[in-house]
């Protein structure tokens, strides 16, 4: 399966993973299928395959992140790549080195790929235009978070068995959310109906051109939805004047067992994490059965393995050795 999807010419989505907004359903499905085959590796006693042996991946994170960075690190290590974590506070970035100089230095040190998380929208694309190594967008500003969207897609397909025909409500700070932007394009391309639920202050201007329906009231927005995806609310949004207070936000947009009764039966509740308990999701654990939050984390590793493999794996004799497929995955 993996071999079929990985063309000799290179990765099916170009040399970098910057955005999911132009990926075709075929490419998206191919990535999900590849991730499916890597899921097995995580269930083995020796959680490692040698497909990226000798390759070096650098995690360059300009924003704090636990789960995305660890997820990329575990994914790369399971593929036998060497991983270096560079965080700005410990490096020359604090001495005023520019982003492009930092990345060129990392490249000169021999990195094959670099995962960039950056507070500026467009920063990974800016870097990708200027280096030869593979650039993977680990989340840029309010723009894109490609691997999050892919793992969300994977989680929905895994838990619901399909994506086409589902109705998905994305609830929260759409304006500042790279998760929302990425998910809207992948979900609609895969045939889901997407609804956005947020106060008018957290809906971007110019949204009328997006293939979504906008709701301002949570009850109406999630009515009949198969999937309800809550976004993380940055706690400083109240200070920025976007919402009057966290408690008012929680009252109007917080998910709880009662409100989820409005959704379709057995809805899937998702959150990119980390959750602000009592803000986006209530303390009640009544809908724990519906929650996909930990599955998202687990599947995130497989999805990132798939992305790294497709980008950096090549299709040489050497690198394809020991690649698991659905049939042989559990052997080792």
């Amino acid at each position, binding site marked *: 399966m993996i071999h079929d999807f990985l063309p000799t010419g290179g990765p099916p989505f170009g040399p970098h993973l910057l955005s999911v*907004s132009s990926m075709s359903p075929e490419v998206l499905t191919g990535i999900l299928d590849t991730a499916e085959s890597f899921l097995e590796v995580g269930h083995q006693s020796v959680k490692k395959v040698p497909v990226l042996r000798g390759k070096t991946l650098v995690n360059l994170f300009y924003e704090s992140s636990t789960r995305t960075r660890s997820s990329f690190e575990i994914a790369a290590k399971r593929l036998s790549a060497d991983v270096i974590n560079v965080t700005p506070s410990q490096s020359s970035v604090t001495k005023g080195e*520019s*982003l*492009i100089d930092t990345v060129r230095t990392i490249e000169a040190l021999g990195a094959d790929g670099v995962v960039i998380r*950056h507070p*500026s*929208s*467009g*920063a990974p694309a*800016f870097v990708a235009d200027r280096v030869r190594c593979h650039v993977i967008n680990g989340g*840029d*500003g*309010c*723009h*894109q978070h490609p691997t999050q969207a892919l793992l969300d897609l994977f989680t929905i397909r895994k838990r619901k068995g399909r994506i086409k025909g589902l109705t998905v409500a994305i609830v929260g700070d759409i304006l500042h959310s*790279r998760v929302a*932007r990425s998910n809207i394009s992948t979900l609609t391309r895969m045939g889901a109906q997407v609804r956005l639920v947020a106060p008018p202050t957290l809906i*971007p*201007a*110019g*949204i*009328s*051109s*997006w293939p979504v329906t906008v709701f301002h009231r949570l009850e109406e927005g999630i009515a009949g939805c198969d999937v309800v995806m809550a976004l993380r609310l940055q706690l400083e949004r109240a200070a920025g004047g976007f919402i009057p207070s966290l408690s008012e936000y929680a009252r109007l947009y917080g998910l709880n067992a009662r409100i989820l009764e409005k959704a379709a039966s057995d809805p899937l509740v998702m959150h990119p994490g980390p959750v602000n308990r009592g803000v986006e999701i209530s303390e009640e654990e009544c809908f724990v059965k519906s929650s996909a939050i930990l599955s998202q984390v687990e599947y995130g590793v497989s999805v990132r393995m798939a992305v790294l493999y497709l980008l950096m794996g090549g299709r040489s004799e050497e690198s394809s050795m020991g690649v698991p497929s659905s049939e042989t995955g559990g052997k080792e």
Partner: protein
Amino acid sequence: MKKQREGTLFVKNVQFFDPAEGISGFGNVLIKDGRVASMGEVTASGAVQEVNGEGLLLCPGFVDLHAHFREPGFEYKETIATGSLAAAAGGFTTVCVMANTDPVNDSADVTRAILERAQDVSLARVYPIGAVTRGLLGEQMTEMGRLSDAGCIAFSDDGKPVSTSRMLRRALEYSRLFNRPIIDHCEDLNLSDKGVMNEGSVSAELGLAGIPNASEEVCVARDLSVLEVAGGRLHVAHLSTAGAVRMIREAKKRHLPVTAETCPHYFALTDEAVRCHGTHAKMNPPLRNEEDRLAIIEGLKDGTIDVIATDHAPHASHEKEQEFDRAPFGIIGLETAFSLSFDLVREGHLTLSELIYRLSTRPATLFGLPRGRLIPGGEADFVLLDLSHGWEAGTPGYCSKSRNSPFTGRRMWGRVMATIVGGRIVYDKEGVLCG
């Protein structure tokens, strides 16, 4: 390219044209001692330098009311010398330079220093614009009397709006003493917040913080209301939105003493350009949407917008080669302004006469500069254009010290072939005149 000559020149077989004087003809133009001696069926007597103007159009040199030459203080971006070279290459014989230098042009000493420097190195005529407030801090008015005496022809805190309604009122009132306009960069900074591009569908998709049209319009509305009580002369810089055009149009109908400029990028591009040109399409005000672009053209057509200025804003490569939200606002514009504007003529929006008027005569009149005319006895500041010449912007390079332009590589029509200031050839593309 640069050629030093005496102020005596004989241009043969040229089409000459001056919208202000209604002059249009074919023949020869004789320049003596930096001034136009005669035009038409004239012959040169004695040994003067002859140049062949065949196939070219001779018209008054362009006058830019809005440029940043960055000297003193930011000479790594541009200097008066390199800026004037860019001006000459773009057909601008006169350039008004903004006050946001370091030190700020808020004292007569700085004004004199700029003028002395220009005297030594500039190919174009340079007129300084003084700051409205000391240090551009928006707190205390500058000594406009001393600044006017030293040579400031207008006042502006450009880069920022005049800080408060009260400061604007006082500045408009006080500047009446010297009959100098106040130029305002109209922006509600509070509304713009951390915005870096136009707010709309493109910013929504790119995840970049938006600057709404209302940012400009709120400030234009404020300025017009204040103008009504204060009197004086208000010149609104770089108009970019349909709403602002509408308000200026309405104010002019009521005969308020307001004038306005726009820049070529606001009628040549929309915010879609941010997708492919990145930080080279980042300026303030930002590129707007198609509806605004068309309204700007409409404003130029009906005279609501008086002038095309460049807002030439050079920045070094290392400053523009950054993350979009960290890069500074601004693009260079002197060398591409005419050709971009000539598209308005090619597309039938303006006549050539109207275009030259908005690039030359009208701006000179607004700021009371004795320029922008082609009359016997007048200063010989003019440009020679080849309207059928196609070229590619930024190839092989720019005369400006900086290269921050979204137009680099763009196929353009209409080319400045030579520029003459005071009878001296300051720009001669590939030796067209003397080759």
